[in-house]
């Protein structure tokens, strides 16, 4: 050991001065460059707020709920889109998740196909799906549902497959050692272990879907979104606000319900 009595200084980190300065520069560029490129004055953003607020106050208040009766079918439609879209994708995604899991499906080609398909549909936003499908099938409810299912399917397939792989790594080996057939391993081992994550992921995508299904109408794919769009275009701002409030309440209620269900099941 060092017996000379000198106390060597111990730096807290190993970053060199040059590297540190470079990091600061990068952060600075990251913060300022977008404003310069977009030719936006950050001060203008701040000064715009008062006029936004006053425009909102003058035109949107008070909300006009007189036409509420007419929205009810649309609200139900929005809700049902999310419900049906979620459960159909949950079932399909479970099958695809099994097909994508290394521990369950030994055929590499099929796994690759499923993975490619799921990342493809997952990375296209739901509104893009909806506009695309409206273009192909025309305006209607079926299009909204299809768009939701596609987007959810991609997301759930990957989430399920990862969870399935985690479970299969350890627990299922025991059933294999018992002499269980692949179907028995899935039904008696995988499914019970999978339920908590299945509930969690599915409820999570339900929350996403209820928001998505509310805006689907804006591209003509059904639901409450179309009425909001129409009212704003016709300058019926007070009615639009009534719809927006209804929508917010709908979303808050589903979040509340989802939290309750989660607590009850897990």
């Amino acid at each position, binding site marked *: 050991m060092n017996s000379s009595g000198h*106390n060597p200084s111990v730096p807290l980190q190993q970053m060199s001065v040059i590297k540190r300065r470079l990091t600061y520069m990068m952060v600075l560029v990251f913060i300022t460059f977008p404003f310069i490129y977009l030719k936006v004055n950050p001060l203008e953003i701040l000064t715009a707020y008062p006029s936004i607020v006053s425009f909102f106050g003058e035109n949107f208040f008070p909300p006009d709920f007189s036409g509420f009766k007419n929205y009810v079918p649309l609200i139900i439609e929005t809700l049902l889109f999310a419900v049906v879209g979620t459960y159909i994708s949950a079932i399909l995604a479970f099958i695809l998740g099994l097909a994508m899991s290394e521990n369950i499906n030994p055929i590499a080609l099929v796994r690759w196909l499923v993975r490619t398909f799921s990342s493809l549909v997952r990375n296209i936003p739901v509104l893009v799906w909806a506009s695309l499908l409206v273009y192909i099938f025309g305006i209607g409810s079926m299009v909204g549902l299809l768009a939701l299912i596609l987007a959810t399917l991609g997301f759930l397939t990957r989430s399920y497959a990862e969870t399935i792989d985690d479970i299969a790594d350890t627990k299922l080996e025991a*059933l294999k*050692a*018992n002499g269980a057939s692949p179907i*028995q391993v899935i039904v008696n081992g995988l499914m019970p272990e999978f339920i908590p994550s299945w509930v969690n992921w599915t409820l999570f995508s339900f929350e996403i879907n209820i928001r998505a299904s509310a805006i689907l109408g804006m591209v003509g794919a059904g639901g409450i979104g179309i009425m909001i769009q129409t009212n704003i275009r016709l300058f019926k701002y007070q009615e639009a606000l009534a719809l927006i409030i209804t929508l917010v309440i709908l979303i808050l209620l589903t979040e509340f319900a989802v939290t309750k269900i989660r607590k009850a099941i897990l």
Partner: protein
Amino acid sequence: MKGPLLKITNLSKRYDGNKIALKNITLEIQPKEFVVIIGPSGAGKSTLIRCLNQLVKPSEGEIIFDGEDISKAKGKKLRQLRGKIGMIFQHYNLISRTNVLKNVLNGKLGSVPFWVSTFGLYSQEDRLQAYNLLKTVGLQDSLYQQAKDLSGGQMQRVGICRALMQEPSLILADEPIASLDPKSSEVVMDYLKKVTEERDLTCIVNLHQVEVAKKYATRIIGVREGEIVFDGTSEELSEDIIKNIYHLPEKKQEVILPVPGFVAEGEAVYE
């Protein structure tokens, strides 16, 4: 039964083509033996035990179990042979969100058709048998508890019942007590020894603790770097042989790491 229950000839295992885990293991195990395999970490104990029921595919060699070559068996035949070999795991590997009774009944998976297991249509005899097994390990009051709510020792006792539910002729246990405290370890090992003796079963157990091995084994096998370096009784396992198995070097100079003398102004100071 006449002859050995298990006849292993020239068994070798290479992982990913290069890493050699087992080298030319040749071994015979007679009915009713309680064999304990000991050896340092990475010696190949788990690999050996897992080759026996084909959870790990051997690279070479032959494993004759109950007169049939399990290393060549596939599909239904393999499942049928696995059904005769019970296995107990270090991490219990119970289905955690399934109750204790159903976990034990899972031992029957290899011998019931899939609709029986899927819809829980097990016969009353099977259910009674599971109940009786749980009673022998003192868990008759926990039938409907989910496995995840049990203690480690209780989980391992369920694991033993699941293996026995198969009505196996051979039981494999890969470090069944490595995750348990000494008291639970003793309970689990006592039960394992008791039930295998009562049923005339053959048992192969991997263990880290030499004293535990000596206490329960009728035969001890020492494995080092994929080879058998000892095969004998507890009495024959001397201190020197233990040292040889674990390859303890004579007395290696300890590496002395610098330790800060004191801490001044938040910085360690070496003297």
